[in-house]
């Protein structure tokens, strides 16, 4: 049985586990129909030209994870930020781990999707926000919606800011030979609220994992959200990340994506600017080796005038790795005075590595500033010689140059402990010890 059939036949079993009378279930059923009709995207579709899900569909993934023994803190400690305190929403094989988590209802709600979807007090929020920005057309998003039950739920009321950043962490333990996870996150920052989130998916064994995650983010007027995605998973873990962001006037949302690991990673990052003077930033550093594959598909839809968007993605591709960057910017006819910038720079450090990069600009307004640029190059030999001539060995010199290349993406990381930990990951990924914390 292929994966689509398995998912279809699992839906009935899923319906036994949830409240089918809840209004959300109508949304699920609609979404299920859409997935049933469309199935998994194929390479024939333009948006999936360079990323094939064919091999993943041959794997016999378990759809309903078994509950596992609690993980010990010391086993997983290193996957959390060490130096600062954070709120934590932690899942083990898709199931909430209260032991590893630290949630709160103190003025803000940092808790679980399952609670938000079942408790009456959250009903008004769910009615307003759930599945309101996520695509109803895209089949993998529909698949997630159909099976949506658990994930992170964050609600920051007007003028509030949580005391500390929030970490959303998904562990998979290898309890199943192969496991499919479909977390569903909903994040709402009301007027003037502020929030920092770090999301990470981590498998603890080399059993196959496929995660199809959907995150909806709503930033109301003047809200500020920083969202960091750390993708440093094992080489048997694949992920399809679907993130949808709805912004209102004067809000600022920044999404940083650090892609260093995994087998196949697809990032669908979509911004919708429903207001004026909005700032949307998406930045990424991708460092790949082996046969790893990462596909960044970004979309910024400028719907109203006087807004900005900034995209800056840096990629370093080694060995047989492959990368895709597809950045789409739509500027509606009334969205005058839009400033939209897009930059994608890549370094290929192996003859066998590949990057496909494509800007896609659809501009219907006439008074706008839009720029895009993509480069594909090698490391600068003169710069390498400069570093070597100071006694820095070639390997370390190359690493230093790669770090420098990716640096301006790191500069805008506003949690310094996170920056340090990403620097460490980069040094690890590049296989060097540089004698100082980068």
């Amino acid at each position, binding site marked *: 049985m292929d994966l689509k059939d398995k998912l279809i036949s699992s839906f009935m079993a899923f319906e036994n586990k949830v409240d089918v009378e809840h209004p959300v279930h109508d949304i699920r059923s609609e979404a299920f129909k859409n997935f049933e009709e469309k199935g998994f995207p194929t390479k024939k579709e333009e948006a999936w030209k360079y990323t094939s899900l064919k091999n993943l569909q041959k794997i016999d993934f378990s759809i309903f994870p078994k509950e596992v023994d609690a993980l010990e803190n010391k086993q997983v400690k290193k996957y959390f930020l060490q130096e600062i305190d954070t709120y934590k929403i932690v899942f083990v094989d898709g199931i909430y781990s209260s032991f590893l988590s630290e949630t709160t209802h103190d003025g803000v709600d940092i808790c679980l999707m399952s609670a938000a979807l079942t408790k009456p007090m959250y009903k008004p929020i769910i009615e307003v926000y759930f599945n309101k920005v996520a695509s109803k057309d895209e089949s993998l998003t529909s698949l997630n919606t159909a099976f949506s039950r658990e994930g992170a739920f964050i609600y920051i009321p007007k003028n509030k800011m949580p005391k500390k950043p929030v970490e959303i962490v998904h562990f998979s333990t290898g309890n199943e030979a192969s496991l499919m996870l479909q977390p569903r996150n909903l994040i709402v920052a009301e007027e003037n609220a502020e929030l920092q989130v770090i999301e990470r998916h981590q498998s603890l064994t080399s059993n196959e994992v496929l995660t199809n995650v959907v995150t909806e983010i709503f930033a109301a007027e003047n809200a500020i959200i920083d969202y960091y995605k750390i993708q440093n998973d094992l080489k048997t873990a694949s992920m399809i990340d679907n993130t949808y962001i709805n912004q209102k006037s004067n809000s600022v949302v920044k999404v940083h994506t650090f892609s260093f690991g995994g087998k196949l990673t697809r990032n669908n990052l979509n911004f919708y600017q429903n207001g004026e003077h909005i700032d949307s930033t998406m930045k990424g550093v991708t460092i790949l080796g082996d046969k790893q594959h990462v596909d960044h598909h970004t979309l910024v839809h400028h719907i109203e005038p006087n807004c900005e968007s900034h995209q800056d993605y840096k990629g370093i591709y080694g060995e047989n790795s492959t990368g895709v960057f597809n950045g789409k910017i739509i500027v509606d006819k009334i969205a005058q005075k839009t400033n939209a910038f897009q930059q994608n720079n890549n370094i290929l450090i192996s003859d066998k590595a590949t990057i496909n990069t494509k800007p896609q600009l659809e501009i219907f307004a006439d008074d706008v500033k839009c720029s895009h640029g993509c480069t594909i190059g090698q490391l600068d030999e*003169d710069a390498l010689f400069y570093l070597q001539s100071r006694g*820095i060995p070639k390997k370390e010199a190359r690493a230093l140059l790669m770090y420098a290349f990716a640096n301006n993406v790191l500069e805008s990381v506003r949690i310094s402990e996170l920056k340090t930990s990403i620097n460490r990951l980069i040094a690890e990924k590049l296989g060097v010890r540089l004698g100082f914390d980068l």
Partner: protein
Amino acid sequence: MLKISNLHAGIEDNEILKGIDLEVKAGEVHAIMGPNGSGKSTLASVIAGKEEYEITAGSVVLEGEDLEDASPEERAHKGIFLSFQYPVEIPGVSVTNFMKTAINEGRKAKGLEDMPAKDMLKMIREKAELLEIDRKFLSRSLNEGFSGGEKKRNEIFQMAMLEPKLAILDETDSGLDIDALRIVANGVNKLKSKDNAVIVITHYQRLLDYIVPDFVHVLHQGKIVKSGTKELAHELEEKGYDWIKQETAV
């Protein structure tokens, strides 16, 4: 200290150095002058080990050891330093961190432990003072947004930190105003000792008023066509390079 014999080198099939002989002893300052395109920077790069240059004949020997197979970093560890005409910008890596890395890599190559942080900071402070470098400057990204003068001063600061046996200053005076030139030259002079040597590559005599050479060599079309003392530099300044070119043609 350094002995270059019948050195022929170039890029691909293009021979740039066509038989250079040069001997530099400890304690000496040599100036290499010459018109544009005479091979001055190539000579500097070949001594420092830039891989794109191929040595087709002859040798470069440092303290009895042929450098032909040594990588640039190995040459640095043996005590060769090249001050670049165009230093490279490295965003995100501070001057301090860059120097820590360079020094500790050098120590690692010699089988030594990392320099203790305290000693490192002390050394950085002392050497920065020597080059009249502000402390704020040290936390800036290496060469990023530096003025021409700051870049050159930073090169000599690195030289001061690495304490090379043989320093090659490639057009260190270009792009410097008179104050920066004085600071840079003063730094070099203070670092000078009987145990090390300096090769100053320059187009103009100006720098040699500050860093006084024991010998001056004129490079033209990949060969040293004339050698002399510092008076030769004055003569060149007065008459230009044309008379050398004519003399060589004859």
